[in-house]
């Protein structure tokens, strides 16, 4: 699947665009890459290890890992059945449901966080009942940070899995049925393995989104070190008083993002 044979697509006449397009394209590329160089340029390379060893950094790193992995797991558990219903069933209002499910992808995260507060906060629609009945208080807790991350990240998984479910050749499922497989067996042993690559890509995207989550988390879960202060929050806070730590944390995030890109390069960059 890797495409490294650059030479095969080079047609001598096709690859010669007008000069002004080249100039603008170069400017755009510089615009995208420049901030990254800014970060690298200001990085306190000599102090990097000691900076990364600080409590605030470690807490943020650990918490980010916990929230993003938990959010991804929750998204898979809830998102796959949701995607299945959206792809395979037909009921009135299905289009509306899909639009609402995908809304957090484009909704400003701060608005999402506020909405979560009104729904699950201590005085929220469901939150009040949760607190009165079970004593569960989501805001300002790690669970709240996970809820916020799941809210914004799940649509990425749903959209990917739903598309995969729609493109699966359903005749394979019929073949499984004629072999005596129950509906659950068909799903588990035929459908799921066939959508596994798309699901993995969706989960990676979902995880990356959860890792970078800032707005909804700070609005809904607050900014408490060790409980809700994930890496993006820590970076934001550190920029005020501890530039070195902010840059160190940023570099970690950049490295993780690059790793995800490299891992999924075949899937996203398989250009003809």
């Amino acid at each position: 699947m890797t495409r490294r044979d650059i030479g095969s697509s080079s047609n001598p006449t096709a690859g010669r665009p007008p000069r002004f397009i080249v100039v603008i394209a170069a400017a755009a590329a510089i615009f995208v890459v420049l901030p990254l160089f800014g970060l690298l340029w200001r990085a306190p390379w000599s102090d990097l290890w000691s900076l990364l060893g600080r409590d605030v950094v470690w807490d943020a790193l650990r918490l980010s890992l916990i929230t993003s992995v938990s959010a991804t797991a929750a998204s898979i558990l809830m998102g796959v059945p949701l995607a299945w219903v959206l792809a395979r069933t037909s009921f009135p209002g299905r289009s509306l449901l899909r639009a609402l499910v995908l809304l957090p992808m484009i909704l400003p995260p701060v608005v999402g966080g506020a909405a979560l507060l009104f729904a699950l906060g201590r005085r929220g629609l469901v939150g009040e009942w949760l607190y009165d009945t079970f004593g569960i208080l989501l805001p300002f807790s790690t669970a709240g940070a996970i809820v916020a991350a799941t809210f914004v990240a799940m649509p990425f998984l749903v959209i990917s899995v739903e598309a995969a479910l729609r493109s699966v050749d359903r005749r394979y499922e019929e073949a499984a049925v004629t072999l005596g497989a129950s509906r659950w067996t068909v799903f588990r042993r035929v459908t799921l393995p066939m959508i596994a690559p798309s699901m993995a890509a969706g989960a990676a995207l979902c995880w990356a989104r959860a890792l970078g989550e800032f707005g909804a988390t700070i609005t809904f879960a607050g900014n408490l070190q060790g409980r809700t202060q994930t890496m993006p929050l820590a970076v934001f806070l550190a920029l005020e008083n501890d530039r070195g730590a902010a840059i160190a944390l940023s570099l970690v995030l950049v490295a993780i993002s690059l790793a995800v890109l490299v891992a999924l390069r075949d899937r996203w960059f398989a250009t003809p």
Partner: protein
Amino acid sequence: MTLHADLRLTLGQLELGIELDLSANETVALVGPNGAGKTTVLRCLAGLSPIDAGRIELDGVVLDEPAVGTWVPAERRSIGVVFQDYLLFPHLNAAENVAFGLRSRGFSRHKALEVSRALLDDLALAGYERSKPRELSGGQAQRVALARALATGPQLLLLDEPFAALDAAARHEIRADFRRRLDSFEGVCLLVIHDPIEALMLADRLLVLEAGTVVQSGSPAEITEHLSSPYVARLVGANLYRGRIRGGMLEVDGGGELHLAQPSGPEGAEAFATIRPQSIALFRERPDGTPRNVWLGTVTKYEHERDRVRVTVGGTVPVVAEITPAALAELQLQPGSEVWVAVKATDVSVHPV
């Protein structure tokens, strides 16, 4: 073991209404043009599509009868299906594909794989147990699909275009092998085949389906003799002979011989030969041209078929020829007339058995 089915179904443009009475130890082929409803019949029997009215009864058990609300879902029917393109699960290897049905029916993984390996071994696929479907040749994939369908010991075996995905070169060899396998299957077997010549070679009985109804049924010989529809006439209406290859000729079972352009098989091998009725020429006098096959026969009957006339000529090698009405008039043919039959060796197609 028997299958009785009375299928009534409306599906878009198609109005399906056919009755099937099949018994074990016979291979029946459903032939017909695209869109005639062949695959729909298989889907109804397999339980992938419900019928609107009628009844499906396999070995005394009613599987589908809308009038009384009886419906046995596909996963509980004792039916094996070989799908067009085979539909082997791409993420499972050959042995796991074959074991799938047994696993679904509650066999342990170990036991299912054991049965699967034995079946693959039996189908000359030993050594391919761990191969993924994409690593198998067309013929191998077809045998894995057959093994998968047979693994659960079905009472009814349905095969949808089992040769469509194979290239022409592979077909000959595979078809013969396939015929032997079907003959040893003990349940009821129904084939859907688009290519009528293939159906004639594989099936004991043919059902010709057109626009949702059976327009003709019978043994291959009966079908080729009495052509009741344009589709049958055009496609099934080839003359079919079985015999042995000897010295560049086919010794036809029942007498006579046909010169072949190429031996197309080892000396003494069994083979089928087909001759299209359009490529047979009839003469009142013995022709002295190049045709290698020339013999004298007697007209037994002729039938008008649209703008053509189909003339049946009896003799050592009986043939059906298709000529124009003008030619019929010119030759002044009547039942009982003697006529010279001429066929070029290149017009005799040979298919190894």
